[in-house]
């Protein structure tokens, strides 16, 4: 069906595509970031942001600001936009939009479960959850003692239920289990999302499969690096990789046996798209890898806007906004803690 989207896409998706492109125009530019980096206090940041689209969300905050308030308000804006788009969306776009939030849902579940394991207050944990990944009975997660209970009590009602089929065990929850659960869920989620996008076909499938493949590969690399030196067996590690992406299947075989970061590097450099990322890093370094991956992701997400009549723009926009909020958080933290020299360490310019 390639090429025919331009005939019918606008019937249902035209309005929202226009909306999302309008929102994209409101993303902070490099000039904005330069100005933000020069701020002396959080009030300066607020003042600068008041000239951007964040203005109405920050204007009613009394003056001694905290980083958390800024981030909270900025996230609120994203959530409001998302909710508006979800309200206006028709099938299959609404399902697509819902898929975007499942990642946050997984993170929230993991956050609450880990929190209760360490005996934190549930309400405190709820405040830390990402608002996009909230569902009705999320607070009840605290009741569960093991994964089977977790699934049977709460998650069976949520869209995450099918992803759980692979990780239902009666073992008690502990940090390791939870981390494995997160990655298993994420794997199932990414594969499901990938399948869904393939089903949509056309430009959406093409662009989204690229973006999701990148996401899957990044997760594979991260899992590998994080599991080096832990008791996770090779087979278990292999099981956590998503079954698509550029690295699938041969890259996964090689990653599964990696023992240190340089081996990972050797594997990744066989793949031309990732060569550039690793060529920026010096040997044995993994600190800057996150930033390098983020930069590459932002570049790919921006490219999604170059084509019209597909759903990838929604995904790209949400991701870019999240990156922007991460940037704002980093800048605000640096300003608040008087560490302005480190501002550029983690900020990823979007434009």
């Amino acid at each position, binding site marked *: 069906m390639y090429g025919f989207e331009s005939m019918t896409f606008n019937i249902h998706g035209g309005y929202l595509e226009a909306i999302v492109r309008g929102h994209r125009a409101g993303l902070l530019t490099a000039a904005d970031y330069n*100005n933000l980096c*020069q*701020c*002396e206090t959080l*009030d*300066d940041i607020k*003042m*600068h942001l*008041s*000239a951007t689209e964040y203005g109405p969300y920050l*204007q*009613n*905050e*009394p*003056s001694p600001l905290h980083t958390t308030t800024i981030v909270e308000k900025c996230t609120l804006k994203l959530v409001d936009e998302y909710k508006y788009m979800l309200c206006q969306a028709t099938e299959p776009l609404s399902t697509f939009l819902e898929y975007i939030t499942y990642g946050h849902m997984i993170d929230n579940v993991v956050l609450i479960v880990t929190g209760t394991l360490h005996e934190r207050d*549930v309400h405190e944990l709820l405040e830390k959850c990402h608002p996009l990944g909230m569902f*009705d*009975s999320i*607070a*009840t997660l*605290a*009741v569960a003692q093991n994964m089977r209970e977790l699934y*049977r*009590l*709460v998650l069976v*009602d949520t869209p995450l239920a099918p992803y759980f089929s692979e990780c239902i065990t009666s073992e008690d929850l502990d940090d390791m289990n939870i981390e494995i659960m997160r990655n298993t869920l994420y794997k199932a989620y990414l594969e499901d999302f990938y399948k869904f996008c393939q089903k949509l076909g056309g430009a959406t499938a093409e662009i989204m499969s690229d973006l999701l493949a990148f996401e899957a590969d990044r997760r594979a690399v991260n899992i590998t690096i994080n599991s080096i030196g832990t008791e996770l067996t090779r087979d278990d590690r292999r099981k956590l990789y998503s079954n698509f992406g550029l690295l699938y299947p041969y890259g996964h075989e090689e990653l599964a046996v990696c023992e240190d970061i340089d081996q990972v590097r050797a594997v990744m450099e066989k793949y031309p798209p990732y060569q550039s990322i690793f060529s920026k890093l010096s040997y044995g370094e993994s600190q800057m890898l996150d930033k390098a991956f983020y930069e590459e992701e932002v570049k790919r997400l921006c490219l999604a806007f170059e084509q019209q009549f597909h759903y990838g723009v929604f995904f790209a926009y949400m991701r870019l906004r999240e990156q922007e909020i991460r940037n704002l958080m980093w800048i605000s933290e640096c300003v608040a803690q008087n560490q302005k020299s480190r501002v550029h360490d983690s900020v990823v310019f979007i434009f």
Partner: protein
Amino acid sequence: MKKKTKSYAHIDWSLKLKTKQKANTREIDLDVLSRDGKLTELTGRESMGDVRGGCCPPMDLFRSEPMQLVQLIIPMESAHFTVSYLGDLGLLQFKDLNSEKSPFQRTYAAQIKKCGEMARKLRFFKEQMLKAGFSPSTKSVAQNDIDVDDLEVKLGELEVELIEMNANGEKLQRSYNELVEYKLVLQKAGEFFASAQHSATAQQREMESRQMGGESIETPLLQDQEASTDLSKQVKLGFITGLVPREKSMAFERILFRATRGNVFLKQVPVEEPITDPVSGEKMEKNVFWVFYSGERAKNKILKICEAFGANRYPFAEDLGKQALMIIEVSGRISELKTTLDAGLLHRDNLLQTIGDQFEQWNLKVKKEKSIYHTLNMLSLDVTKKCLVAEGWSPVFATKQIQEALQRAAFDSNSQVGAIFQVLHTRESPPTYFRTNKFTSAFQEIVDAYGVAKYQEANPGVYTIVTFPFLFAVMFGDWGHGICLLLATLFFIVREKKLSSQKLGDITEMTFGGRYVILMMSLFSIYTGLVYNEFFSVPFELFGYSAYACRDLSCRDASTVGLIKVGDTYPFGVDPAWHGTRSELPFLNSLKMKMSILLGVAQMNLGIILNYFNATFFGISLNIWFQFIPQMIFLNSLFGYLSLLIIVKWCTGSQADLYHIMIYMFLSPTDELGENQLFPGQKTVQLVLLLLALVSVPWMLLPKPFLLKKQHENSCSLRVVSCVL
């Protein structure tokens, strides 16, 4: 005399500045400008002469006001006053001289932050007032000017007071709401327990009576056993009572069931009216629930689930007597709290009332203050840091007013030196400014919505005043409706003074803003309505009798053969006899369509002629020869000719088919016209017109871009040469 001394002061002061050389060059520039200005003025007058046609007031609206770029050098101490007065005047558009600086690096960033903070407090008050059901009073309290610093302190105090009051009130409100919920639980659960006990005792009594009546064969063995085990191994069941939001009640029940594997007994009773939730303070619908469970683990789970669902739990005594006591106690405390709460609310309302009285004034003050500082941020700081330099555009006529404002500001701020006002010469294109009044402004806005004319370009707004309402009326055309419209707009115009100071709704505001447009539209509609002879779609014999009548009295053949003309032609507009006839629609359609073509062609011609005025005004002969003339020829050889044919057809009453003529003028221009011929030599005329139209297309499109390109190249090479020299 006073003025003279002032100007001397200016000169003295300007000598102090170290920008002497700059000032010199500017003076030279000034000379050039004044010469240029005169020149353009002269040409402007000449071209306007033929348009104006000896009309008395100058046509301000036709060309935008002549503008000048002015520079103000304002001493620091009087800057605030100066900008404030200039803002009141509204005749100067400041240029942003600090565009490369970010907002917080500018001179007055701190003050703007302060104003933003005050605005935030005011918004907080407004929100509080809205919650309490007050609206800020619209009557402006005539109070002498408030100082900004005082206002800031006052707002801060009020905010603290209000927040404290809210906090106290909230605490009370919370406990009050909790008590109300508790009372509900006591009532509802009490009812249940009473009825349950009643039925239980009844059952027991029945059982006992059965046992008393001897052991008959019918008595089921199991039941007996059951009853006895029940008595011997009585399990202590615990229970929890509370309230849960109704929309969550289903999920609540489901999770409870799943968490305890069905080993609970849950009973819910809806509360009829929505009650205020103590935690969030919002009204919501709730259910009273009570859960029976067994065992400590189940209890823990249920407690956690209750917490997760935001279900408030309340202790409940099993004993009926205790329940009654509790209810009495709770009711007593509720009434106590109620009086305290009311007193607090009254106090708060009083405070909000006092805020509300002055709210508008404060709001205005803060807004003004903020915009003054925003403007001040656009000015650049002089090297000596003692004065601010402003640049801006102002219409030439406003020079005097601006100077007066500057003097007033210097006087009011007790400044030693006044501000310096000087005109700069620039190559930049000035902004467009039309001096409109309450009548013309709405029309100008309509034109601006399509596009703002360039500086000194001919303004179609002048013609819009007539053409826009008239074209509306051509479509509207009904004098009954026109009168309705007229009455509505007259209402707005008569109450203009009162309404303009008032805040109106969105739609009313728009209607009110366009009241003069609507007035013109209604007047024209009455006129066209008379032409169409329609009063709520009913014709009237206003200007005499219809010219047509039936052939005989019975009027039998009126719809077959038609009417005959008996009198003179109906003097004005459409003959009422047309109404309701079989041929009414074709007749009126043809009339209105042809009229629309004539009006449209006239309108297009006017647009092109305006182009001509612009070309002569700016002295661009290229536009006349390669744009205006071919456009004129193209338009008039096709559509102008059609208009001519329409008029000829009207005058001669010919039966020619104009569609046919126009279509075959292109398809087969050499064919004979036959019965469609309207005048002799028509074929030759058409051939010539067609050729002209064909020629004018490349004439219009081709030469201009090439000539412009050549001009550009010439000027480029000239610039290069001058640079080399």
